[in-house]
């Protein structure tokens, strides 16, 4: 699911950052997807419905220690991306 999400982003024409690519190649696809989502949010990028679904499915597979606030940050970023994507589609 996680690697598929990254593949879906690439297939949708999203330019993955060097850091994301580096993390994936170094064997940390979880971190790569997390940062890809963060970049999508920071750069206010909208996604196609298909890519969005893949990203959502991948993000659900990510696990975070509850001692950190990363799950909250991730969910908030995803929500903004979904809203933006929905607005673009409309």
């Amino acid at each position, binding site marked *: 699911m996680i690697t598929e999400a990254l593949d879906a982003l690439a297939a949708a024409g999203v330019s993955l950052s060097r850091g994301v690519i580096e993390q994936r190649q170094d064997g940390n696809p979880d971190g790569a997807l997390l940062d890809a989502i963060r970049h999508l949010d920071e750069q206010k990028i909208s996604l196609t419905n298909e890519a969005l679904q893949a990203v959502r499915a991948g993000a659900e597979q990510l696990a975070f*220690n509850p*001692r*950190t606030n990363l799950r909250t940050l991730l969910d908030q970023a995803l929500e903004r991306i979904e809203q933006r994507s929905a607005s673009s589609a409309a």
Partner: protein
Amino acid sequence: MAHWPTELQRVLAALTTDAANRAVPLMAHAAEFGRRESLAFITDAFPEFITPFIAGAGDIAATIYEDLPGGIDGYTAFTADPPPLDKLAAAGRYALLRGIESFIEGMLTRLINNGFRDTTFENIAKEYGEPVILEAPGAVLGTLWARHASANACGFCRVLATRGAVYHSEESATRVIGESIGLTITDKRRLFQEYHVGSMAELRKVAPEAIARERERRQYYTSEKAARKAGKHVGDRKVGRLRGTQDYGDKFHDKCHCTAIAVRPGGHYEPAPYVRQWEADHEQAINDAQEAGELTGGRDDIKVIARRMDQIERDRRNSDTSSNISAPDVKDVRDDDAPATDSAADDGGNGTGNGTDRTGFGSPDEFPKLPDGSSVPYGPSDVAPLDSWDFDYFAGKSTQSGGGHRYGSKIDGKTEFAQWVQSLDDLQAIQDAALTSPSVRVYPAGWGRYQFRSAVNVRGHAMVVHVVLDAHGYPVTIFPVNGDGVGRNVGGRREDRPFDLDALLNWTGDDH
């Protein structure tokens, strides 16, 4: 536009920085092994590592040499051979045993800058047919080559850089004649009166040609008595004594950024503008030291003069008086790390450094600075220990992706630790080693996180490890990039990921 030797210093400094960025993790990695193994490793690795940098500096020197004015028609410059492997290996072992980052950087500066200097000296020797420079470069400083120091060089380097700053004639720049014959007190008084000035510094500003003319006149015997006393004839050129600091002329202490600029046959060298100020400082330093009775005529005189020059420079900056140093030159290659004058002179280029700025590989209580100069808001000892959730994730008991990086997890795209890493203690030992490793590099990772990467050796297993912590020092993830027994799952297969330091050295830490 900056004086071109200053640009050259910048290039060499960049080369050294690049080498240091790679050498420190290399040394740190070697230090993770037992003493015997680490020395054996560095004996092989260090010469191979450093030789391209030395050769690169030599290539730069050869290129520049050919571009310098003057020279024999058809002469083609060449790059000097790097030092013998056994010497480089010895330098590497010494650096390893010292284990001090600032020392390693200083040693690299010397080795790489010597690559430039050796090529320069060897080409001078060949083009002039004068091998003396190879035996004693200091003896021909000021005639066959000049010493360029940055504007903020230490006193020791400034003393030496004032030598050879002005080539009074083509002949003096192309022959080994020792020190030019200086002006007498009578000459100076006459020139002061003629040009209405009160010092040599002022005279240099208003009538440098008069100084040159008088000096040239003084190069020849005009008195039959004086000529006869020296075994010469009227009209013969006088040969000045080699300057008292010649023994030091070829000394380049660790971290010294001075470069050797060749003066090719028929060529000339124009020193940086600030050297004129240094010449004035030099004169004043000698006068002050003489008045204070500090000069003995011995080898320590240069240290006294260098200290005096440092003091003059400090006084000038403190009083904010005008100087001949232009703003851009002050921002030249920084010599902040230049050793204190005493130590520089004591070192005599033996490569021992002064050690006053030793910081070690980093304090266990703080991480290295981030690239922007800021700090991680907590230190290694503040990082929260891994807990049961972290272990469950690592061990594949997580409800989400089904596991972390434990051997046998078989999650596509993920690396797996070696099989021996099984318990929370194992994982904690690796994280502790990674965060306190001398090789650790750190970058921001967005959302307040920090990412760390280190080369470590835990329980005899070498690996490059990546750790991510959140803004408050709670662990986010830990995974192996490569190492002994490390693998990565790709398309249902487990590919070996053997230890490779490039994953640390070439890591960009890019979070954008």
